[in-house]
């Protein structure tokens, strides 16, 4: 026997953990402590059937929590108090005696908790959590209905299993309908509760400032920067342009307003990429170097081919970028070169000396760049993320003392020396590389791929130079491994996450509209081009086959054992006595007499006795009848020439 309250409790605790679990990292300390404590107290109280908190005291505690967090509410801080309150109310309900109403409240609060988690994260983990919650809550509600009828109800295990089996129809069909409703529900153009969303946490990796020497070591962050759907490209072309840093102040490169520049992108191979950008705290939009047009969200374009979103990217975005790989950024007018030649006032003698030598030896910008490259190679610089030069004079320390650093050191010192050698230069920030996921046909770019390179103005054309390639260990450095093969597991997980973003996170009114339009269009074109090949029928064939199999399954399930047996029997004798007519309305005994077959007589006797005494066939009788049918079929095979 199963006491209905036990599985109900089990479901209640599971639903609480799954509902409130995703909120854990955003909870305050009191809620973090109280949640596991409440689970433990609630569980033991249920086992002992003795509760410390009852009726009014639990209401008072809930009220106290409500007042405390309500007092913390303000327009800038809505979410934190809200989620903490939800979790604490859930905790109170867990430790109190559980009436039907309390169980219901736990289910609702768990659902609220999971819904609140969507204010913090769009992670795919929401989906399995939602599936579990739908299963748990719906089956829990059915058990709760029994519990309401009789709290002490005990049911035989077989009955309990039958009830759970029937109740499982609810979550299964609910989830199938969820997919349908999700697609067709009317969408609003404005987020429903983003006004209460917290600000997105700052992302590490890509930055709108380059300040070599500010940190002693660089940690590689594997968080997703964006995904890009584009054709497979050579590794050396995967430069994702984000920003241009045109001003150096002491040791920090930053971006200031540009002088008016007219440029044109020439040459190169045109490539179309679709980028899926997660939420960010900046407005930089990325594109394969050199990007020349972008669509998808409102943006501003600068003369240095930097695209900035007009609004903060506080939600996932999809952009279409057209780039020219190997293209050149040609200046149409003469520009104020002095803007790109500005250097900080206090420079080390060694840097001045190096720049002077290059300026003297190189007659043109091209020659000076080559000379500087030679200088970098001579210095035997190493690409490294640890034991980095300090902040006082990082570039001098990098080039002459430590001789180790990451891309920011290489690029900023290269650009600075170019400027000192009278070659206009600037830094370009973005990403280098990408893991190609052939399961989803896209590049996955992570924050550890953030990169800085240099653009130098040579003959009115901005030329890309990547000084990091001049590191002596470039071939084996992590930078060079940035287009690596992901493990199958990571690839599969990232593909799922990608499709989740594609299908769910970015599904909006526009996609909904497109879906309706495409369906109509396909239908019209199907009517117009009524040329059907066999291949067109394959999907239809599979669907028909699927329906047939399901229909047969249902028929098999709905017919009784006796009906199925009789069907097999008739089929066997029809095969055996092909020449004779076997009418269905003739009794079994009559048929046996007509056929003069002892096997049929035996079948009629066993089946008839069950039929006329209105009892179901025993297992022994059933096996005997099956055996008779088998022998009838066997003889058929033997007699068939």
């Amino acid at each position, binding site marked *: 026997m199963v006491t209905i309250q036990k599985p109900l409790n089990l479901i209640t605790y599971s639903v609480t953990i799954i509902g409130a679990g995703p909120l854990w990292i955003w909870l305050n300390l009191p809620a973090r402590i109280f949640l596991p404590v409440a689970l433990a107290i609630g569980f033991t109280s249920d086992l002992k059937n003795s509760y410390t908190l009852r009726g009014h005291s639990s209401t008072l505690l809930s009220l106290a929590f409500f007042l405390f967090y309500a007092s913390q509410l303000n327009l800038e801080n809505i979410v934190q108090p809200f989620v903490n309150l939800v979790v604490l109310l859930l905790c109170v309900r867990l430790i109190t005696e559980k009436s039907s109403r309390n169980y219901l409240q736990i289910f609702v609060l768990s*659902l609220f908790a*999971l*819904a609140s988690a*969507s204010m913090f994260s*769009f992670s795919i983990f*929401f*989906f399995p959590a*939602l599936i579990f919650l*739908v299963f748990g809550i*719906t089956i829990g*509600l*059915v058990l*709760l*209905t*029994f519990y*309401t*009828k*009789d709290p002490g*109800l005990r*049911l035989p295990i077989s*009955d309990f299993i*039958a*009830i759970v089996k*029937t*109740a499982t*129809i*609810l*979550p299964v*069909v*609910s*989830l*199938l*309908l*969820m*997919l*349908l*409703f*999700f697609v067709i*529900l009317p*969408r*609003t*153009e404005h*987020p*429903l*509760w*983003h006004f209460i*969303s917290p600000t997105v946490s700052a992302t590490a990796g890509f930055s709108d400032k380059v300040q070599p020497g500010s940190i002693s070591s660089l940690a590689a962050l594997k968080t997703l920067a964006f995904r890009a759907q584009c054709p497979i490209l050579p590794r050396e072309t995967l430069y994702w342009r984000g920003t241009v840093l045109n001003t150096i102040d002491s040791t920090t490169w930053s971006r200031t307003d540009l002088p008016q520049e007219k440029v044109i992108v020439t040459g190169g191979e045109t490539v179309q990429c679709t980028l899926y950008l997660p939420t960010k705290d900046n407005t930089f939009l990325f594109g394969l170097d050199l990007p020349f047009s972008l669509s998808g*969200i409102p943006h501003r374009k600068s003369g240095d081919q930097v695209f900035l979103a007009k609004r903060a990217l506080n*939600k*996932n*975005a999809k952009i279409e970028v057209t780039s020219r790989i190997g293209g050149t950024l040609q200046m149409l007018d003469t520009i104020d070169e002095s803007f790109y030649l500005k250097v900080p006032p206090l420079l080390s003698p060694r840097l001045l000396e190096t720049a002077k030598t290059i300026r003297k030896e190189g007659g043109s910008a091209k020659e000076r760049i080559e000379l500087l490259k030679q200088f970098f190679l001579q210095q035997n610089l190493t690409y490294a993320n640890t034991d980095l030069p300090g902040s006082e004079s990082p570039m001098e320390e990098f080039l002459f003392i430590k001789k180790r650093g990451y891309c920011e050191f290489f690029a900023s010192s290269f650009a600075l020396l170019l400027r000192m050698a009278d070659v206009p230069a600037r830094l370009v920030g973005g990403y280098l590389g990408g893991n190609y996921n052939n399961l989803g046909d896209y590049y996955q770019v992570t924050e550890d791929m953030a990169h800085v390179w240099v653009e130098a103005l040579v003959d009115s054309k901005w030329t890309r130079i990547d000084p990091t390639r001049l590191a002596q260990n470039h071939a084996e450095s992590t930078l060079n491994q940035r287009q690596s093969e992901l493990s199958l597991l990571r690839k599969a997980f990232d593909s799922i996450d990608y499709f989740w973003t594609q299908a*769910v*996170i*970015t*599904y*909006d*009114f526009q996609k909904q509209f497109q879906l309706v339009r495409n369906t109509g269009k396909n239908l019209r074109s199907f009517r117009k081009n009524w040329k059907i090949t066999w291949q067109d029928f394959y999907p239809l064939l599979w669907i028909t086959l699927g329906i047939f199999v399901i229909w047969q399954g*249902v028929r098999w*399930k*709905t017919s009784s054992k006796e009906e199925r047996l009789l069907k097999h029997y008739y089929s066997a004798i029809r095969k055996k006595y092909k020449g004779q007519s076997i009418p269905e309305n003739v009794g079994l005994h009559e048929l046996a007499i007509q056929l003069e077959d002892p096997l049929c007589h035996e079948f009629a006797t066993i089946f008839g006795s069950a039929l006329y005494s209105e009892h179901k066939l025993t297992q022994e009788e059933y096996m005997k009848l099956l055996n008779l049918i088998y022998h009838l079929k066997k003889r058929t095979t033997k007699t068939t020439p």
Partner: protein
Amino acid sequence: MNTGNNLLYLMVSALLGFMSISGILGNQNLKNLRILLEPPEEIYDGVETLLTIHIQNNRRLLPSILLEILFQEQCSDTVYLLAKGDTTKVNIPVTFYGRGDHSQHKLSISSNFPINFFIRSQTITLEHTIVVFPKPFPCRSALSLFSEKSGLKNESAQKGYEGDINCIVDYQSGEPLKMVHWKLSARHDSLKIKKLSSTGAEPVEIDPNSLPGPSLEARLCCASFLINEFTRSSRPVGLKLGETVYPAATGRPHKYTLLTALAHYGNDTKTP
């Protein structure tokens, strides 16, 4: 872009899906149920009795869950699970008012499956003739009148199983074996049985019109009481209803015949 809403939309879609399927499942839970009434043998006007109701689940795939039958505002015990093809029975205390035939019965079958937010119910009208006998009214004066007319335990010429041997006759099929006269049968070629006299009291014939009571209904109630009393004491009882006469006899089937005649006397079929 509308990303902020979509997880919420997903949750709302799941809830909508749940609402839809719970409605369908709740509706289907009451479908294909066969309800049969099994009334007790004796039902008296205005007297509470226990009505048995059989519920058969004729659904081919699913069980019916949490069923309750409501009849005359009385609710049955809950049937927690009725597997496909199975039958169960529930009892409901009911009271029928008005003697005669009650042939149409409205009952409702309800369930709060799958969730306790809604209770679904279905009203069924069943065609089943239930004869409601007049309520026995203890009319002691009439009873004593009949007792005075004849003492109890008088032997009668009628066939019985307890009195003296009246005669010996040949065995006929259906006779109880205890009546076989083995000694005589041994002497003859055929089985012989003893015919005993009845030890019952003097038969009585009840004419409701001659019974005390202010109205026909009161007199019928008195007659109902007397029939019950005489049957209980194994006294043959007959009935005279106008021109129709029911000869005196004993036994439960005879009692029901007389009570049925009383129920139908001077009245058309009644429906509740």
